[in-house]
């Protein structure tokens, strides 16, 4: 076995894919070739280091809203539902996606929001929306929302005005988007797509509130 043949077998050797005869041949070559032995040791170390690298890393922004918007477009193309309901749902999905994206961008880049502070606690979901939740098995929505809103209110003094504004603004926009989806559901009560979007929006709002409550103190 020459050096080229030996080097060509290093990975199979390290992966345990050589048979006994091949292993013996390679080891015989290594015993008489310090250069190849050093090369094998070096490759072994590098592979070990590579194997210890992290396997997962969260991106700096939430990619799901944009993905969801695009896969929702694909649903529209499939044409399962009425045009008007779909347009309303698509608009609401875009709004929900945008606000969630805005929220995460706001958090990650510390964007200073100068918008007027929206009044969220006094708004909340409409009667139509609340009626829709009963059909989705999330009729505890208001209790959960109120509990989290109270917890968020109690923490406001620990958060910067910018953060409070970002959270409040996004909660309000999600409320508005949910109401639009619920209105579309009023026209097409059996629309499974709309129901899922509504339940998804519900989940996002609760998730946003939970994250807001868990935020580390800023002031």
């Amino acid at each position, binding site marked *: 076995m020459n050096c080229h043949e030996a*080097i*060509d077998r290093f*990975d199979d050797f390290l992966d345990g894919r050589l048979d006994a005869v091949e292993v013996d041949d390679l080891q015989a070559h290594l015993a008489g070739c310090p250069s190849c032995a050093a090369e094998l040791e*070096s*490759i072994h170390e*590098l*592979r070990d*280091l*590579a*194997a*210890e*690298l*992290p*396997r*997962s*890393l*969260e*991106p*700096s*922004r939430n*990619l*799901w809203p*944009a*993905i*969801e918007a*695009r*896969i*929702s477009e*694909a*649903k529209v193309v*499939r044409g399962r539902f009425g045009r008007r309901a779909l347009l309303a749902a698509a608009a609401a999905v875009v709004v929900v996606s945008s606000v969630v994206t805005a929220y995460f961008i706001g958090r990650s880049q510390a964007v200073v929001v100068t918008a007027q502070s929206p009044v969220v606690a006094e708004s909340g979901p409409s009667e139509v929306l609340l009626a829709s939740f009963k059909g989705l098995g999330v009729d505890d929505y208001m209790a959960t929302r109120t509990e989290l809103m109270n917890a968020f209110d109690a923490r406001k003094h620990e958060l910067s005005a910018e953060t409070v504004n970002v959270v409040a603004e996004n909660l309000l926009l999600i409320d508005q988007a949910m109401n639009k989806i619920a209105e579309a559901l009023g026209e097409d009560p059996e629309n499974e797509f709309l129901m*899922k979007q509504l*339940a*998804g929006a519900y989940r996002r709002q609760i998730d946003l509130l939970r994250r807001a409550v868990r935020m580390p103190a800023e002031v």
Partner: protein
Amino acid sequence: MGTGISMGVETMATFPISNPVPPRAAMRVAGEPASREHLVDRAAGGDAEAFEELYRENVGRVYLLCLRMCGNPSTAEELAQEAFVRAWQKLGSFRGESAFSTWLHRVTVNIVLGNRRSTARREARVKPVGDELPVDLSVSEPSPGQAVDLERSIAALPDGARTVFVLHDVEGYRHKEIARLTGLAEGTSKAQLHRARRLLRKALTS
């Protein structure tokens, strides 16, 4: 998003993801939890919520693979997003001969390589930008300093060498499989790996 990525179906180079196999129900994957199988089935039936759960389970690995292969965080995010959209579109062809995460991994590799080809065709090469790698790679999993050095050195490798090194030494692909994915000859794949290791050793010891 302004990264200049072209992912049109008409222009994307695609690679075979799976061979014809028996239906998923007749070929369960060992180690694939039933709940995840159920999620995949629901997503394949058009359930976006189920797909979102699959997204949340896999986004970290998909993003990191894209980041290591392209070397640029913003491009990696675009590619990861594209990979999930493509996976959604192709879920009907997933027959369960491997774990969903393994299948998704291959979809992602195809997306990254396809983007590189279309980018090269436009002569607008995506350059590896080592300085843009997150300095806090250790945030998600504790990592020794040498591993962070290795991440940066990988990002600085030439495209071809980086691709083969990531696929072979980090992700565990074999040369035969890399050759099929990339269109390279197996010998070229081996040569690129040798080159990558040589450059990395030099970078790590300098």
